């Protein structure tokens, strides 16, 4: 599904990613953990195609295709989805209209007709029920005045609507209380299949109790310094990150 080779990326000439190698196969869940400033969110943004980041070395292959030259929307059309750590508030665009535009633009890119309004409504109803989202919420301006938890739930709702091949969840657990965390994790688990893959970026292990990863990677100073199974996340939760830093520096 996703293969990242020796990826270096910088923003304004400041190197942030310094040689990342990662392979994510269909059906897998990978967790990327690490201290603040280690480059986790940068990695997510680079995969999704944020233009401020410049890839200086290495490449990103999605199903064998180098996606580096593709615009963010083209990556989205190929099935990349990023759940934002800080979803942007967009006054004047309703959640429903936003989703309709996103889905129909994606269909257009694939040479398909617009989704019939009836099907769209049905899908919106099903997916919002799955994430226990109030219907009234859908006519509100996108993320405007949403609580932290509402924003994150809305991100997963978008994921459910767009049915991506590769979903990257950037700190989706931050700002969620335990009930919201459970709803969000349930949503992600329902969307998981043998044909898609999920990368969960998080500081804490608690989300990983609900979305159980096949692999856990620790990012430090722009590199993956340790990889393991779900057990590694528990170890990090118990011992913190200092021992990893010491191990790297030793």
């Amino acid at each position, binding site marked *: 599904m996703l293969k990242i080779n020796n990826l270096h990326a910088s923003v304004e000439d400041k190197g942030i990613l310094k040689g990342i190698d990662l392979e994510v196969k269909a059906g897998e869940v990978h967790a990327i953990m690490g201290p603040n400033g280690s480059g986790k969110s940068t990695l997510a943004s680079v995969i999704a195609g944020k233009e401020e980041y410049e890839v200086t070395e290495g490449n990103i292959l999605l199903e064998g295709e180098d996606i580096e030259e593709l*615009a963010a*929307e083209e990556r989205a*059309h190929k099935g990349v989805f990023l759940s934002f750590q800080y979803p942007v508030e967009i*006054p*004047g665009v309703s959640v429903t209209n936003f989703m309709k535009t996103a889905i129909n633009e994606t269909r257009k890119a694939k040479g398909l007709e617009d989704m019939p309004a009836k099907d769209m409504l049905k899908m919106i109803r099903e997916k919002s029920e799955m994430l226990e989202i109030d219907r009234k919420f859908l006519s509100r301006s996108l993320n405007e005045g949403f609580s932290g938890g509402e924003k994150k739930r809305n991100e997963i709702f978008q994921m459910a609507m767009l049915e991506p091949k590769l979903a990257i969840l950037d700190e989706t657990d931050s700002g969620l209380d335990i009930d919201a965390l459970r709803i969000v994790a349930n949503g992600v688990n329902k969307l998981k299949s043998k044909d898609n893959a999920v990368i969960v970026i998080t500081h804490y292990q608690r989300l990983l109790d609900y979305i159980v990863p096949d692999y856990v990677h620790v990012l430090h100073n722009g590199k993956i310094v340790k990889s393991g199974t779900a057990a590694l996340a528990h170890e990090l939760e118990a011992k913190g990150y200092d021992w990893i830093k010491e191990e790297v520096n030793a």
Partner: protein
Amino acid sequence: MELKEKLVSSFMAFENTVDVDSPVHDIRTEAIKTFETEGFPSKRQEAWKYTSLNSVLKHDYSVFPKHENALEYKDVKKYFIHEIDCYKIIFIDGKYSSHLSQTTHDGIDVCLMSAALSKPKYRLIIENYFNKIAPKDGLSSLNTAFSAEGAYIHIPKNKLVAKPIQIIHFSTGNEAALMLQPRNLVVVDENSHVQIIERHQSLTDNPVLTNSVTEIFANKRAIVDFYKIQNDNENASLIDNTFVNQKQESLAKVHTFSFGGKLIRNNLNFYQNGERIDSTMKGITIIGNKQHVDHNTLVHHIEPNCESHQDYKGIFDDSSTGVFNGKVVVEKLAQKTNAFQANNNILISDKASINTKPQLEIFADDVKCSHGCTIGQLDESAMFYLRSRGIPEKEARALLMFAFSNNVLDSVKIPEIKNRITKIIAKKLGVNIGFDL
């Protein structure tokens, strides 16, 4: 010959076409003298600092079109809000088109200024209202001097006019260059409600200059909704002078949608002569190329307990230029005034510019007045967010621009107008997406 001289010397020829013994003609004679003294405004005048008329005054305009032209409804239908039943007052090259119009005298008068100026039954209204609030500046005086045709609307008291009234001025390119001076009068009596849609549309690339004057009187508890759709081609220029006089508890709203034209200047003045008056003026301006749109507004708060709301949004691309000059005067007597003014702008291109200037003159001490101007660019993080969901750059940009301006549409009460405006905006932004509200 300079346009000014040409106009002044045409006045005698004009006098052969109108009744020179009427009291209105005394007003015209006075007005041509004022125009002769004042002339066209220049950039030396504070109110015209950022708008030069030079480029539009240079053409050799025909002042009285010689030829008449006809239009088939099917060819111009798209310029009408045709989805709803309306009264229509339609002009072609300044001449009334009975064929395209639908006027009425059934309880209300929706007809022609030429009829109102000549028939005795309208004399009282003309005496009481004609040229009573238009200021004595050069442009208004020029229009007054040549005032002969336009829309005349009189709604007697307690009438809820169910059908909107559309006023459309077409120019067909019959003349190499054409100057039009429509004169409209709208009188809405006590407790009545009317909705009016106005549009100027040139059908060819020949230059057109329109210098229009509209006087609106909203009497006690009257409601007036006025929509101006300015989406003309890039050889047509418009100077729109609209003056609104309000009596107590009346509500007047003017929405101005400026999407096209070479140069547009909107002089929009509200005078509040009574208590508990509400005046609203809102606008969306989306232009590009070398287009220029200037909104010059005035609200004169004269009596206590009144409100005014101004909300103008502007989006400027290419080398287009915008001006917003909003003046709010609160007289000493006008305590408890609530006056709000906002002008928000987005510059898409490095070459586009906007000059925005709020002017507040407050002589009362117990008032709430606010104003705010912003000039910005599109939010890049919002762009990435939309694009990461599969919305291409152009569409994402359009969606953000529409979102930026669409609260202006909240107060548009006719859904078909709202619909039309969103379609024009989508076309203007070069996208084919529906902006649901």
